């Protein structure tokens, strides 16, 4: 099955990190990505720019309405994602638990809906 792991962090926590801490954290991410690629779980993954760069778009009555900011203001912000291949939810949970942000933020694991 395919699962999308949505990574939620508090941007404030990340912003408060020292340069060395940020370097260490990104190093952990690089290692994690390398590891799940080697094991064949990795399908896609990216970090996102801060939520201040987000734009929300809606079309109502044929008119495009654009607003600044994310769809919902929350304490933790969506900061990136991995799309992974896992045998089942248990394996997906094990993968998600090793994402470095799981220790300071949280990871939402969602199965991908397949249409055939």
């Amino acid at each position, binding site marked *: 099955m395919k699962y999308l792991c949505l990574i939620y962090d508090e941007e404030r926590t990340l912003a408060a990190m020292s340069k060395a801490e940020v370097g260490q954290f990104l190093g952990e991410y690089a290692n994690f990505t390398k590891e799940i690629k080697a094991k064949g779980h990795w399908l896609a993954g990216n970090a996102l720019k801060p939520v201040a760069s987000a734009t929300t778009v809606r079309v109502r009555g044929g008119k495009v309405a654009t607003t600044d900011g994310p769809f919902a203001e929350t304490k933790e912000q969506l900061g990136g994602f991995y799309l992974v291949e896992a045998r089942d939810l*248990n394996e*997906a949970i094990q993968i998600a638990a090793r994402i470095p942000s799981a220790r300071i933020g949280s990871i939402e694991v969602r199965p991908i809906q397949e249409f*055939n």
Partner: protein
Amino acid sequence: MSSGPPQPLRDTIEAVYRAESRRVLATLIRLLGDFDLAEEALHEAFVAALDAWRAGLPGNPRAWLVSTGRFKAIDVLRRRARFDDSVARIGLEVASEHPDPAAGADASLADDPLRLIFTCCHPALPPDAQVALTLREVCGLTTEEIARAFLVGPPTIAQRIVRAKSKIREAGIPYEVPGAAELHERLAPVLRVVYLVFNEGYAASSGRDLTRADLSDEAIRLGRLLCDLLPDAEGQGLLALMLLTESRRRARTTAAGEIVLLGEQDRGLWDVALIAEGVALVERALASGRAGSYALQAAIAAVHAEAPDAASTDWTQIVALYDVLLRCAPSPVVELNRAAALAMRDGPAAGLALIDAILARGELADYGPAHSARAELLRRLQRDAEAAVAYRQALGLSRLEPERRFLTGRLQALGGASPATD
């Protein structure tokens, strides 16, 4: 139609149903990969047995039921597949993978009940759904029975179960016993569900009766199953705790359903067989060196169980066990229980000081037992007016009829104090 099956056969099949249906279901879920299809198959297999077993019982009724259920399910899937249902096609492939289900008659088959429990108590399911699903699938209670036990409407329970099954399917929750690395972590919610079911049966949180024996029996049955299949100190500790608590059931209410406190119980009514079994399990759990909070609570219950009368209770040992329990599983409720034990060891004034300090922190302000424990100590200190206030606070927080009658009785015994109304 010929006449229905003869009564003795019906009785036999009912007995087989009680003994085997949950194990058969657990295996069918593994073979068919779907809860609803497995339940349908189980039902059809028993219907088929009414006819097929007229000539005599098969050598291994469980294997017969599994095999028949599986073929019935394949029939259902074939009918659905004809209507180009892609889900049914996949199901048919899964169901046909094992040419002979009885061929899996090894460890795989023996582990099926555990697979079922771990799946029903998967932490990705909401806690109340874990309880409902376990009672439905593992214990075989009907939706109505579960609804009655938890005082909610059957549609609420039905919805919890439907949603849980749907999440199992959609999120890909596997039908398996977790591996050694996760086993300890995954066992915790299973034990929590079993203990919750037991407690709801032993000390119902609300309602007309103090206890619901059927739920406690189911919890103990689950506890035994876990211990048989999975030797684990906390599993043994939980079973011991349930057995030792259960051993006092007959003594804890009068024939009229009134509460009798531990110190005033007729110990001749305690079940010595359950105590012996519970004590042996506690000793094994403690000797393993991996005893956790259930084993420690069981050890406390064992000290009570081994005292011939209330006066000879070894309160020093009980307080010491609470000290260890507090370190291993700190909680204000454990602190409260320790304070009550300490009051027995050092006198009511010492216990009262601890309870007042706990209540001052605010965490247990709405916890009825904290106020009734405080009231008991005030009563023993002959501070009747304060005791009456505390009993009224406890009464205001109790939703259980026998408990309310008990507290009202205590209030009246204090003299002059009229029972509170709310």
